[in-house]
């Protein structure tokens, strides 16, 4: 049986090789269909995984209430002028958030965050970074881990101590050759902070003001307020920005994801009326974003399935066209085979195998090309791509099935030829 099949495949290959150009062109339809399906899925999956990771990094049980600079203040500074812009969350609002959430979900954790952009210096090494002023619970709310030393303590907050914890990447940049523990760094050119800990490498996309937590310095909230105040003056060229921002973010961590939607509604009801004129506070619910991303991924998959179906349909029509031409060309051969004892099923299987060989060959080369394209996209465009084995198997399986489905009609036509007429065919 296996010998018979291999003989039919061998015969199919011989017949297809008689018309190399025609067979190659037919195969190309399937080839590009399969390759584009694999490449599109890889790009889509990569983008989706990147987005999902970003939202998971924010914490799916978290709600983030952030201060944002209102749009109409973006152009308010003029050369040499010192206009004070006040926006964002206040300490008082943070108290109200805490009170509201704790009354509904007593187990919730709420942390306040201040983010000040400053330069950090160690010897000759200088880096511009974000000084994150926060509280001890920040670590558990963000699910980050300490690599070395310790995290902030309540005592640090009470004493407004000049201690700090460095993000992993920043520590390596400032202390390329030595251990940063118990050393000091100069923040903002004035204040010396004592390093008490270094974070593990987090590798997260989400971080403050376009950075990641791996590049930040963490100090006690009270110290941040005392050293830098609530007015942040930034000089750039000959323009100066003077902003009054009390808190940059309040992170709310709930015990489980079921509580997220209700708590988010409460927060919106409370915050949005207070800031609706200035639009300077934004509430981000990673869980909602995650759901949206999943929904858009589903939609993307549907669109992709339609595109894939169309491209493989076109490939299939190509195969059917060529197989019909082959059947007509080989009418006499069909007659000879029938005279020599071939049953209809033998003729059907012969032409189906040929169609299958055509599309399977296109499928194999298409898989190769489909694996190469995502690699090139990553290499040239630095866009993450993810090739999943089920996607490859799916694309290949569909291509082989297309060959068989579109080969059925030509094969049926061949098998149902009158042997006498077929033998007369010139």
């Amino acid at each position, binding site marked *: 049986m296996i010998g018979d099949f291999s003989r039919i495949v061998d015969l199919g290959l011989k017949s297809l090789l008689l018309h190399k150009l025609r067979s190659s062109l037919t195969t190309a339809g399937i080839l590009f269909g399969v390759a584009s399906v694999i490449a599109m899925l890889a790009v889509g999956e990569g983008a989706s995984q990147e987005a999902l990771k970003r939202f998971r990094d924010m914490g799916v049980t978290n709600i983030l209430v952030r201060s944002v600079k209102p749009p109409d203040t973006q152009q308010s500074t003029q050369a040499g002028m010192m206009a004070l812009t006040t926006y964002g969350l206040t300490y008082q609002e943070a108290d109200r958030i805490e009170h509201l959430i704790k009354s509904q979900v007593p187990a919730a954790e709420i942390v306040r965050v201040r983010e000040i952009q400053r330069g950090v210096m160690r010897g000759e090494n200088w880096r511009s970074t974000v000084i994150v002023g926060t509280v001890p619970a920040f670590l558990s709310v963000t699910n980050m881990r300490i690599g070395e030393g310790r995290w902030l303590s309540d005592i640090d907050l009470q004493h407004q101590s000049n201690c700090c914890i460095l993000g992993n990447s920043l520590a390596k940049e400032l202390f390329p050759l030595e251990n940063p523990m118990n050393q000091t760094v100069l923040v903002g050119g004035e204040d010396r902070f004592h390093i008490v800990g270094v974070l593990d490498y987090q590798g997260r996309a989400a971080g403050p003001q376009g950075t990641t937590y791996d590049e930040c310095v963490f100090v006690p909230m009270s110290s941040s307020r005392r050293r830098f105040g609530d007015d942040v003056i930034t000089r750039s060229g000959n323009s100066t920005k003077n902003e009054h921002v009390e808190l940059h973010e309040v992170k709310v961590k709930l015990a489980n994801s079921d509580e997220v939607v209700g708590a988010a509604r409460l927060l919106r009801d409370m915050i949005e009326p207070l800031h609706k004129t200035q639009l300077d506070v934004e509430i981000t619910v990673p869980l909602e974003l995650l759901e949206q991303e999943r929904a858009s991924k589903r939609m993307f998959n549907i669109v992709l399935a339609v595109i894939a179906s169309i491209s493989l349909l076109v490939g299939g029509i190509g195969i059917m066209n060529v197989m019909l031409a082959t059947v007509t060309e080989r009418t006499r051969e069909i007659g000879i085979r029938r005279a020599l004892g071939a*049953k209809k099923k033998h003729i059907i299987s012969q032409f189906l195998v040929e169609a299958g060989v055509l599309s399977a060959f296109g499928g194999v080369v298409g898989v190769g090309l489909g694996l190469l394209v995502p690699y090139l996209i990553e290499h040239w465009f630095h866009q993450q791509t993810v090739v999943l084995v089920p996607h490859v198997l799916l694309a290949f399986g569909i291509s082989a099935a297309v060959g068989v489905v579109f080969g059925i009609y030509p094969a049926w036509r061949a098998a149902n030829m009158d042997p006498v007429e077929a*033998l007369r065919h010139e």
Partner: protein
Amino acid sequence: MNPPAERPVIAEFQDVHRHYQMGDNVVRALDGVSMQVLKGDYVAIMGRSGSGKSTMLNILGCLDRPTTGRYLVGNRDVTHLSDDALSEVRGREIGFIFQSFNLIPQLSVLGNLEVPLFYQGRIGAESKRKAEQLAERVGLGGRLQHRPMELSGGQQQRVAIARALMNDPLFLLADEATGNLDSNTEREILDLLDQLRGEGMTIVVVTHNAKVAERADRALWLKDGRVERLVAARDAVVGP
């Protein structure tokens, strides 16, 4: 000419009619033909164009069925067999030899020889051995890997004869087997058929060529779908 009664019947037509509907007209391609082919017979079927030769060949070869009447192959009535069952009879009982050789161009000589056994699921070392023996028998032992295109017409027809013998058929059915050959090659092929006949093979040739027919024991003259004369083959040269 009455055939000796002790030889078994290989193929038999019993009042076979084959009619075709052509528009409003009925064409009576065969109009009541009865005849027997016995084991070891060498029979020529002759007639002019349109006499019903081809229709008779098609029914003899189980490629077509009678409209009425019965056709028996080795005592088995095949008149009403299904398409698949007729394929089975063709594959097991009949060895075809065609005018234009009808070898499959993309297969080697060996591949062509194995085709009949392939459809009976008898492919393997045995079929290869048999193909080699028969290729040797028709003088093409060294050409097994050649493609038909690389052979002369006479050689191709020898391959076709070997292929017809692969399934040990009840009879060989030759359709103008020498029609595409020059006279020397024609003689070689007819000599080969004579040899086979000498070994006990039953042969039916359909031809309009008297040189072919005169090698047979007897000839059926067809005219307008009927057997006009049954003659000794040497008389067939003259014609009715």
